[in-house]
């Protein structure tokens, strides 16, 4: 039997370390494994016994790239347990803060992690030598996201201003208006980003995915909505664990999620876009159409365009919220402690992030469950690799390896969230 081995011991430009193993026998892909080595779920154990008020600040430290997502899922889950609901301007401020994180996270990925794949550079540093002004545009755009998160989060990393019931401190109108001008320039830069991303060369790789995202009747989903799919799923967040299963697989320390009776599913910008195109703002919809997209996109390599459209949407939405902002009377509503369980799902930059907590009568966390988006995408990543390698086996070895890494990067996997480190290793024989 003819066997081939491709070894890529380290996958660059993904957040964290992990491994990818692809086994090819007689020019046929027989096995693909995404490996995660780090003991997962440390934080779930770490939260037990802690006071509920500490949860947003602790979970914010799970990921340096998407702390807001963790805070948002945490506070909404605990508020769900306590039977309270944050509305009005406090709700809008949370949405605004999340927009900042989408801008930061997506811009980092589009400009510094994913674009070099398409333009043929080893990394963003090599790309910057030839495309300094483009990289500068990305850095400027990301900076506006940072500023938004810093203003609302209280500091640049591991924001500390979010609490159950609202915030510790809310911004003044002047503080937000001070950001509006920069956000307008960022929106222009985001539009240029969409146009630029659309010029990349994309392999012909459309797949029939099962997309899962939140959907809200009146807005593109961030903090709230029902969990829906393109194949008829439409459930409240409270039914998440009845419909999704987490499976342990031997080769990975991160649990693999599947939709019961339907299998692997795809979360993140592509899923949100396909399930919520009608909720994008007019400027974002127009940019998508100008970029040659319809309301359906099934080529994961084009996720770079979709992320750019979401950056544009986030800038646009942030400006809308700022224009309508009136400081609320209080920074938070009361959070009456009671023994209860609650859950929430929000749209992290990489897809739905589910949290569930059980709280004691004294406000201590009895148990916690956190399902990050990257662990939900693991199976789909493996399927993509299997399909992709099968179709492009004739490519020269280095190019095939490169393309495999690019195919993984389509998902912007944040292995720090799924566990902490993930080393990607591609083995082909």
């Amino acid at each position, binding site marked *: 039997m003819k066997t081939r081995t491709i070894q890529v011991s*380290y996958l660059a*430009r*993904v*957040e*964290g*370390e992990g491994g990818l193993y692809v086994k090819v026998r007689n020019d046929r892909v027989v096995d693909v494994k995404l490996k995660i080595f*780090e*003991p997962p779920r*440390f934080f779930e154990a*770490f939260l037990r016994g802690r006071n509920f008020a500490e949860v947003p600040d602790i979970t914010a*430290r799970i990921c*340096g*790239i998407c702390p807001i997502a963790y805070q948002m899922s945490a506070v909404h889950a605990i508020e769900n347990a306590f039977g309270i609901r944050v509305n009005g301007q406090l709700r809008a401020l949370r949405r605004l803060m999340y927009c900042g994180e989408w801008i930061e996270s997506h811009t*980092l*990925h589009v400009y*510094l*992690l994913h674009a070099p794949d398409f333009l043929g550079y080893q*990394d*963003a*540093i090599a790309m*910057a*030598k030839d495309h*300094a002004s483009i*990289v*500068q545009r990305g*850095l400027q755009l*990301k*900076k506006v996201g*940072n500023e938004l998160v810093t203003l609302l989060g209280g500091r*640049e*990393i*591991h924001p500390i201003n979010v609490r159950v019931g609202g915030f510790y401190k809310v911004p003044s109108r002047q503080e937000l208006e001070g950001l509006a001008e920069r956000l307008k320039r960022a929106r222009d830069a985001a539009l240029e980003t969409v146009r630029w991303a659309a010029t990349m060369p994309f392999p012909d790789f459309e797949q029939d995915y099962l997309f899962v995202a939140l959907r809200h009747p009146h807005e593109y989903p961030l903090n709230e909505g029902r969990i829906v799919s393109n194949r008829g799923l439409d459930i409240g967040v409270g039914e998440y664990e009845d419909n999704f299963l987490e499976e342990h697989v031997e080769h990975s320390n991160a649990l693999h999620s599947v939709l019961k009776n339907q299998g692997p599913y795809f979360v993140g910008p592509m899923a949100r876009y396909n399930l919520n195109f009608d909720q994008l703002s007019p400027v974002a919809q127009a940019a998508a159409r100008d970029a040659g997209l319809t309301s359906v996109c099934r080529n994961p390599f084009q996720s770079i365009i979709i992320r750019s459209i979401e950056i544009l949407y986030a800038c646009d939405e942030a400006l809308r919220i700022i224009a309508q902002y009136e400081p609320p009377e209080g920074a938070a509503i009361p959070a009456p402690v009671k023994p209860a369980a609650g859950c929430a799902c929000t749209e992290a930059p990489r897809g739905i992030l589910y949290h569930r907590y059980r709280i004691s009568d004294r406000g201590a966390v009895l148990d916690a469950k956190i399902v990050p988006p990257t662990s939900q995408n693991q199976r789909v990543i493996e399927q993509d690799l299997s399909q992709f390698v099968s179709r492009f086996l004739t490519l020269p070895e280095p190019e095939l390896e490169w393309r495999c890494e690019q195919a993984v990067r389509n998902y912007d996997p944040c292995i*720090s969230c799924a566990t*902490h*480190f993930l*080393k990607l290793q591609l083995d082909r024989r």
Partner: protein
Amino acid sequence: MQPSKLIVIGIGNQYRSDDAAGLLVVRRLREQPTGSYEVHERAGEGTALMELWKGAQRVVVIDAVESGAVPGRIHRFQANLEPLPAPIFRDSTHAFGLVEAVELSRALHQLPSNLLIYGIEGESFEAGGEPSRAVLTAINDLVKELRQAIDQFPGEQSVRF
């Protein structure tokens, strides 16, 4: 021309044993401020570091490293003169960390004219653990060294090594 303020940046994750070394050094410096300098804590995300040191002339960064040397050993790198040995910096395995931030700044001609990076050799990076004894000793030594260096030249609002 006003001399630029010295910027001291500690990088790390306080929940990962010796990975917290950089944070602990800058927290100690903040307890007893001497001279004129800014202290920052960062998780290690590269573009945030670039933003912080953009336009600065003198910057000190402290991070944990993993090179196989004796735990607690303090490595020193003059990053404005030479590339960092990427594999030993734990951030280098992240998407875009300290090493990438240094090199992208260099490519864009935005590197501080004096960028000194300290790497404290870690022993354990386990989630949920405390810093090791060797690293705590190194933190003490480095805090003393930095204070002395800063105190020596208070009027210049900068530091020499």
